[in-house]
C-alpha cells in the first residue's frame, strides 16, 4: 500500500506538471493582453511597458514559465494582477465553499442517480422504467444554467422554499447542489440501470435464488454491490466534470467558491489566478481518482494493487 501510494503520488506530480505547462502555453497564446487590463485604457505606452517589465511579461515564454514553476515549487502561487493579494490566500478563502458544494452535489447525484437506476432495472421495461429514463435523458441533455435558473424560479421565486442566492445555511446549499448533481444523476441512472441488468443476468444471482434467498436480500446483498463496482471509477472522473460545472453554477447562485473566482479572473486575464485555480482543479481530479481507486480496492476483492 505505501509503495502504491508513492507511485500514484509520483504520477500525480507528473500530471500536474503537464497541466501547468499546457495551461501556461494556452494563456501565453491568448490574444488578450493582461497588461492592458491592469493599466486601463488611458495608460501611456511607458506605463504599460513598465508594468510589463515589473510582472516579467516581457521575458520569453520559457523564462516566464521557468520563473512560475520555480516559485510554484516553493509553494508560491503568485500574486493576482488585479486583486493585489496572494493567489493562495484567495483560493484558500474560497475553497471550502466549493468543496462543500461538490460533496453535496456528489451526494445528490448518487442519491438520485443510483435510486433511479436500481428502480428502473428492477421494474425493467415498465412505464416507471420508461419515465425514469426520459427524466435521466433530460438530466444528461439540459444545460446547467437552464436547470439552475428553472430550479431558482420554481423553488426559490415561486414557492419560496429556498433562498435565491448566497452562502451559509443548508437551505442555500440545496438548489446549487441539485443543479450540479442533476446531470450526473442522469448519467448514473443510465449506467446503474445497465450495470444492474448485467449483474441480474449473472449466474451467481441464479445461485442466490436457488439458495432460497428473499428478493430484498438478493437485490441489496448480491446485485447492488456488484453493480456499483463499475460506477465507483466514474465518481473519480466526475470530479473533473464538476470542476467545470461549478464555474457556471456558482455564478448562477452567487456561491462564493473558486468557480466564481476563476470566472472573474478569466474575464480580466488575471493569469496567476487562472493558473492557480486550474492547478487546484487538477489536484482535485487526481485526488478524486486516487480515492475512487482505493475505494474500489476495498469493495472488490479481485483487484490487487499494481
Amino acid at each position, binding site marked *: 500500500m505505501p*509503495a*502504491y501510494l*508513492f*507511485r500514484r503520488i509520483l504520477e500525480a506530480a507528473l500530471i500536474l506538471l503537464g497541466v501547468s505547462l499546457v495551461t501556461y502555453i494556452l494563456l501565453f497564446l491568448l490574444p488578450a493582453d493582461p497588461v492592458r487590463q491592469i493599466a486601463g485604457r488611458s495608460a501611456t505606452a511607458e506605463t504599460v511597458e513598465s508594468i510589463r517589465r515589473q510582472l516579467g511579461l516581457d521575458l520569453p515564454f520559457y523564462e516566464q514559465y521557468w520563473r512560475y514553476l520555480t516559485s510554484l515549487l516553493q509553494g508560491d502561487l503568485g500574486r493576482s494582477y488585479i486583486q493585489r493579494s496572494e493567489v493562495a490566500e484567495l483560493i484558500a478563502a474560497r475553497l471550502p465553499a466549493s468543496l462543500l458544494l461538490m460533496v453535496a452535489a456528489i451526494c445528490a447525484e448518487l442519491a438520485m442517480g443510483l435510486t433511479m437506476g436500481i428502480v428502473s432495472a428492477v421494474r425493467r421495461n415498465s412505464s416507471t422504467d420508461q419515465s425514469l429514463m426520459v427524466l435521466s435523458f433530460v438530466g444528461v441533455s439540459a444545460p446547467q444554467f437552464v436547470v439552475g435558473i428553472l430550479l431558482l424560479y420554481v423553488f426559490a421565486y415561486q414557492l419560496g422554499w429556498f433562498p435565491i442566492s448566497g452562502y451559509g445555511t443548508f437551505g442555500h446549499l440545496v438548489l446549487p447542489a441539485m443543479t450540479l448533481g442533476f446531470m450526473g444523476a442522469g448519467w448514473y441512472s443510465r449506467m446503474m440501470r445497465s450495470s444492474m441488468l448485467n449483474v441480474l443476468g*449473472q*449466474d*451467481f444471482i*441464479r*445461485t*442466490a*435464488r*436457488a*439458495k*432460497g*434467498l*428473499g428478493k430484498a*436480500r438478493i437485490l441489496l*446483498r*448480491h446485485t447492488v*454491490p*456488484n453493480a456499483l*463496482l463499475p460506477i465507483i471509477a466514474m465518481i473519480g472522473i466526475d470530479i473533473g466534470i464538476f470542476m467545470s460545472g461549478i464555474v457556471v453554477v456558482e455564478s448562477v447562485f452567487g456561491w462564493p467558491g473558486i468557480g466564481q473566482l476563476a470566472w472573474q479572473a478569466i474575464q480580466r486575464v488575471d493569469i496567476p489566478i487562472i493558473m492557480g485555480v486550474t492547478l487546484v482543479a487538477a489536484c482535485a481530479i487526481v485526488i478524486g481518482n486516487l480515492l475512487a481507486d482505493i475505494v474500489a480496492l476495498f*469493495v*472488490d*476483492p*479481485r483487484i*490487487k*494493487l*499494481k
Partner: protein
Amino acid sequence: MNQQGASQGPVLDVRNLTTRVATAEGAKTIIDDISFQLRLGETLCVAGESGSGKSVTSLSIMGLLPSSAKVTSGEIRLDGRDLLKLSDRQMQEVRGGDVAMIFQEPMTSLNPVMTVGAQLTEAITAHHDLRGAAARAKALEALDAVRMSESKRRLLQYPHELSGGMRQRVMIAMALSGNPKVLIADEPTTALDVTIQAQILALMNDLKKDFGTAVMLITHDMGVVAEMADRVVVMNGGRIVESQAVRDLFATPKEAYTQELLAAVPQLGSTRGQKPEVKSDVPGQPAIVEIRDLTVRFDIHGGLLQRPVKRVHAVEKVSLDLFPGETLALVGESGCGKSTIGKSLANLIPWSGSIRIAGQEIAGLSSDRMQAVRRNIQLVFQDPYAALNPRMTVGELVGEPLVIHRLAQGSELTDRVAELFRRVGLDPVMMDRHPHEFSGGQRQRICIARALSLGPKVIVADESVSALDVSVQAQVLDLLGELQAELGLSYLFISHDMAVVEQISHRVAVMFLGQIVETGPRDQVFENPLHPYTRRLMDAVPIADPKRLRRDRVLPTGEIPSPIQALDYVPVIEPLIDFGSAHYATARHEVSG
C-alpha cells in the same frame, strides 16, 4: 436402493409438464408434456444434447425460469405437494430447502465480492434457525462434508482465490446445507478437468449415500451417465425419448435416437489392437513442423515499478515433430501449456527456441516474411460462437484470409469461397448469411473453411470439437478425417478429451506442467501408458459402460498443480527416455498434487 425407493413412492413426481417460451415469432414449446419420477436415494440422469430441454426441466422444477418462459401445464409434485401451486414465498422456502441445485459454471456461480463463508452462511440462515457463530460452525461443517482442504481458511477466502473444482465443492456444500430431499445437478462437472470431474462425481455419490438425497443429474456426457445413474431419461427436442434403468438403456436402447446418441459417443479403447496409419504419398518425408526446445514463459508484474514478481512456466523445452498427413494430439489438463504451443506455432505470443515450418525457421522472422509462413499454418479454435465476427457475413469471413493475403478478389474470390463451402459440406447459397443464423456445428465448419482458404499444410485445432454435441462432434471429426485424406493436411490436435484423441490421432503427446511426459504412437500410448500421469488421465475418463464396476480405480486427490513459480525457479527438465517403437516417456516420477 432402487427397490427400497420404489416402496416409498417417488419424492419428486413430474407429470405432463409443458414449458413454453415467448419468442419474437410467438410462443414456442420447449418442454412438451414430459413425465418422470425420482425416488429417494436414487440418481436419475437426464441425458440429451443441447436444445433438448434438459436444463429448462430443472429450472421449471426450481421455479427459476427466466421471465420469458412459463410452465403452461402439468404438475411438479414434491412429496405430494404441487410446487406449481405454491406462492412465491412458499417456493422460496422450497428452493435451497427441500430442493437444491448446483450449476455448470463454478467460475461464475458464486458472488465475486462475498467470501465463501458469507455465501454459505447465508444459505444456512435462510433455511435454519441458526445465527452468528452457530451458522458459521454449520458452514464449516458443510465444507468439511464436501472434503474441502483447509476448510477454515476457505471460509474467509473469495471465490476467485479458489480453483474450479474447489468452487464446485463450495456449490455442493451450499446445496447440501439445507438437507435437501432432491438435489438437481445441471452439468456439474462439464467445465472441470477430467481428474477433477472424477473427484466431484465420486463425492456426489458418497454424499448421496450419506444424506439419502435423491439426485437428478443433468448431463450431455454418456460416460457420466454410465458412471452415476440408476435410471436414465433421454430427452430430445423437449420430449422424453425413452426412460430406462441404466444397464438396460446401454444394453438395449429402444429408440433410434438413443441408439444414434450412444453410437456417436467416443469410447476409450475403441481402437484397441489397431495400428494408426498415416496416408502419405511419399513415406519418410521430412517433418512439416519441427519444434525444438520451445519455451514460453510469462512474467507476472507487480510492486512499485511493475517489476516481474512471479513467472508462469507455460512451456518448458518442448520438442515435437509433426509429419505430413499426420494427426498429432497434444493432451493434458488446464494450464499444462498445450494451447500455448498452438499459439506459438502461429507466432501469436512471444516464445523462444526453434520452430521450423516446412523447413523455414520462424524465430526472428520479420512480419512480412511471417505473413507468407502463416499461409502454411492455420488455426481452428474451440468456441465457434466467439471465433466469428457477428457483423460479417460468413462468405466474407471465409474469404477474408484470401483478401488479406491478396490472393483473390471479385468473382474469383466468390468462386473460391463457394468451393470452400462445398468442401466443408455447406451450401454456398448460405454465403450471404450472418453467423448467428448457423448452428454450432455449422459454425465450426465455417471456421474450418476459413482455415482452409489459404491452402495450409498444417491446421492447429485447439479443442475444436469440445464445445459441440456428440453427434455433431462425430460429424466434424469425420470432416477433419476426410480433409486430411483429400488434402494431406497435418493436424496438431489439442484436446483434453482422451476418447476423442484416441479416435482421431496417429501420435499422442501428453503434457503436464509445460513439459511432455509421454509421447508415442496412439496404440502404444493408449494400450501401454508408461507415465503415471497418462494413466491417471485415462483412468479419470468416465466410461460409457454401466456394466463396468464403478469406482474400481484409485481416484486422484488434490488439485492440478500450478505452473506459476517464483522468479528464481529453475525448471527441472525431465529427459524423455526411449522405450522403443517411437514411444518415449520421462522417468516415472509419481506426479505430485
